[in-house]
């Protein structure tokens, strides 16, 4: 229990540091929201009015206090880019991003895991060579290339899927709207699975090869345990903690979005919003997005620590002591 409290306290400290850095780093970076306003019809006096509109005319300490209040109350203020509450901006984008990236993460991890274990079990066979090759190709191809190729094939030459977005124009009504949504997400999802299963497959194959050569696996085989039990209960279980860690630490990426995928498929997601907010020094939007990402990362880290305790008896015993 003490260990858990220590970890939670440590996480809170990390969050406070992130909160403070989040404010000052953006202000220390070269440029400010007004630097990017380069329009000859926007005089220095007009820029000053813009500074008033955005609250940049106030002293830094006052800006900091407003920032802390907005962050801790999860209101986040108004986006400088759009004038819309940042929370509303995120609410309209994050569901699309999660709907795309969470299944993509789950599917690519599951596929990579299955292929990685398969390849490790059939070393030297055609299966392993195929997994290694496909894994390397999938891992190394630039995403925009693969995605444009898929668009060309499945949205143009064989127009099975739509070219853009998450809904038809005009969108259907009723239950058909859900089907329409899924239909629009299929190709981006497929592309992300293709692009990321390779990393999982290669990683798991390498770890499984190492685990399968360990003495305790040999011992399990010598004890006459069934093949399936040796593979999954002994070898695979030993690699489970690092796999879970990677999986959990990938979860914040599910919210932060995939900029290139959003661009190629014209998806309304969080990735481009985050990028544009950072580029245009939209302090409230970038601050909120990074704060939420930090919150999620800290939470996933904490979750990974807890799950470690559950899946690894050695950690459990250590924690108990």
């Amino acid at each position: 229990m003490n260990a858990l409290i220590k970890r939670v306290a440590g996480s809170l400290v990390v969050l406070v540091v992130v909160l403070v850095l989040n404010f000052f780093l953006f202000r220390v970076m070269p440029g400010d929201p007004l630097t990017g306003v380069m329009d000859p019809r926007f005089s220095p006096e007009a820029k000053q009015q813009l500074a008033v509109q955005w609250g940049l005319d106030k002293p830094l300490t006052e800006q900091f206090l407003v920032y802390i209040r907005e962050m801790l109350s999860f209101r986040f203020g108004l986006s400088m880019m759009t004038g819309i509450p940042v929370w509303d901006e995120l609410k309209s984008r994050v569901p699309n991003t999660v709907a795309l990236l969470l299944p993509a993460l789950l599917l690519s991890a599951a596929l990579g895991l299955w292929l990685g274990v398969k390849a490790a079990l059939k070393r030297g066979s055609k299966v392993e060579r195929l997994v290694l090759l496909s894994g390397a190709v999938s891992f190394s191809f630039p995403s925009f290339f693969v995605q444009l190729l898929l668009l060309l094939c499945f949205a143009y030459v064989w127009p099975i899927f739509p070219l853009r977005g998450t809904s038809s124009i005009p969108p259907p009504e009723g239950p058909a709207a859900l089907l329409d949504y899924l239909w629009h997400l299929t190709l981006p999802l497929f592309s992300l699975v293709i692009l990321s299963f390779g990393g999982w497959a290669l990683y798991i194959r390498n770890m499984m090869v190492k685990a399968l050569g360990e003495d305790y696996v040999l011992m399990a085989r010598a004890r006459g345990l069934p093949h399936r039990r040796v593979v999954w209960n002994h070898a695979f279980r030993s690699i489970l903690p690092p796999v879970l860690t990677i999986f959990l630490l990938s979860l914040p990426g599910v919210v932060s979005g995939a900029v290139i995928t959003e661009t190629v498929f014209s998806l309304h997601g969080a990735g481009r919003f985050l990028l544009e907010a950072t580029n245009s020094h939209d302090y409230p939007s970038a601050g909120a997005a990074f704060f939420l990402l930090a919150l999620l990362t800290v939470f996933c880290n904490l979750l990974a620590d807890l799950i470690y305790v559950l899946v690894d008896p050695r950690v459990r015993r250590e924690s108990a002591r």
Partner: protein
Amino acid sequence: MIFNFSMKTFEFSLNTGRSQARKRLGRFGRLRGGRFYDWIVWAALVSSIWRAAPSSAGLTSDENLAPPATSSFEGSSFDIFDFEGPKMKDLYYVIMRDMDAQLLAMSTGKLDVLSDLYRPADVERLARSGAAELSLASTFHGFFITFNVREFPWDQVTLRQAASQVVDRRRWTRDLFSGYCEPLASFLPPISPYYDPLETAGPPGVGSSNVDLSNAGLSSVEAARKRLADAGWTWDLAGWLVAPDGRPAPLTKILCPPSSVAATTTEIAQLMAEALLSLGVPAEAEPIDFQTMLARVDAHDFDACTNAWTMSRDPDVLYSFYHSSMDVAGGYNLSGISDPELDRVLRDLRYAPDEATARVMASRAQRLLSELSPVIPLYSRYSISATRNDWDGVFTTDRSTSDNMMTLVSMTPKDGKERPIYWNIPEEIRTLNPLVSSTAYDWTVLGTIYDTLISVNPYTFEDMPWLAESWSIEPGDAGSVLTFTLRPGLKWQDGRPLTAEDVAFSLRYIKDNNVPRFYDSVKDVESIEVAEDRRTLRVFMGNTSYWHLHNIGGMLVLPQHILETVSDWRTWQPTNRPHEALDGTVLTELIGTGPFTFRESRTGEYVHMTRNEHYMLLRPQNSKGSKETEETKEARP
């Protein structure tokens, strides 16, 4: 990417003898044409390309670069009431970001109009596909190399003139943009009504002509070195330039964005560095993060930098760029040029009482700038757009590509069947609050909703009646007095009448709230009077300037009955607030007078608009000469 486009043969019907363009267009085969607008489209393409296309002789200097004088424009009698529309009921602004996806959508009919084509390969691919007709026009864009003239060596005008002389605009634009950009050697783009080719010529070899008759036979580098030598500059034993006072030219770093962000800009900075090296000036390109670059330029911590501007038809932008009072934080006099004579001319240009004075001052300013060379103009981008060729009624001029309001109003499918128009927007709409939105994409949508008092003749860039049927600008006691008379029978999209009270209220609201986007346009408004007929409006300005006419005449007009209900203009989201039209239809507060009425926006996906049944160009409102109908008479209070 390999596209399976079938090659189609175009028919080229041009009765001009511009062989350069023919050579260039020969890559597309022959152009489809025959009708009036086709002639206009391709005349525009040809005339623009004629100026940009590299000569077959492979010129390496800017000789013959000066574009033709802009005195003979067509269409000065252009009348918007020759148009009737909108013809189509539905318009969808479709958000599609990726350029390759946009091209696929054009080919499959998922998009009808595509703007901002900028990759030469895309232009040629679309032209070959036969799916769309392309239009091309010069723009107000300008790309410059800016020197920090506050410090040595760029405070030396001879060196700046020599640097200007060695740039090879024609070759650079040909190599980097395959000719799809226009070499620019003037401080106002040649498309500007105030561009003066004679005054822009500047000293021999420096200005737009780049022809130095006194140094005939010399290459541009030799002529530039001779210019420096004549002014007392020398070269040390290693070949580096030394100023007349004995100071060696220090290293000049040309700030530019990294190639991952703007590849051609980085390359131009490198070419510029090479050009300076040819003069003996140590120079190199320094690619840095764009925001860092802007911050350093703002802090005057630079030697030279790349920068681009989109200017407007009014030449008073020159005041913003080159007047010494603009050399302040947040100002646009990046070079820091400060010259009393230039300041005086620019001030007279900004506060010119009438158009004739403005024209004279614009010419003088261009002459002085050509002599002072605080920046080196390099190129201007073309605007290129595509419209699917299954539509009729596409309108273009040599100054306007097909993605314009008149096209929107008059386009109809060739098969005569009613269907929506799908118009691409390559970025998400950020906000449809007209008082806050600032991106060109937001204004693509807002521009079809809101109108202005006066508009711009697409042939000549002269003022053209729009909501106001007539106007005048006169000198007053304190400043200019503007008088606008609205057309009779104008209506908002919700059916309520538009009066001069609305215009006055819009102007007062924007001024009283210091709305930043329109601050400069209304800051000099002293008072506004509305005549009893509620069609005539007099605006009294606090000082005299001809440009007040364009600032006030170009302001968007908002409905008073909506604006009165807005509690905070900064957070106003008109698309989320329902508003009932006179006929009971539920619209939103995004109500204007434009050809299409906002219906729905699905963020990040599309904006749906429907025809404004009260639009002034729709019959029976559109009776030539603005005759009032019984309906419009009744609508008037």
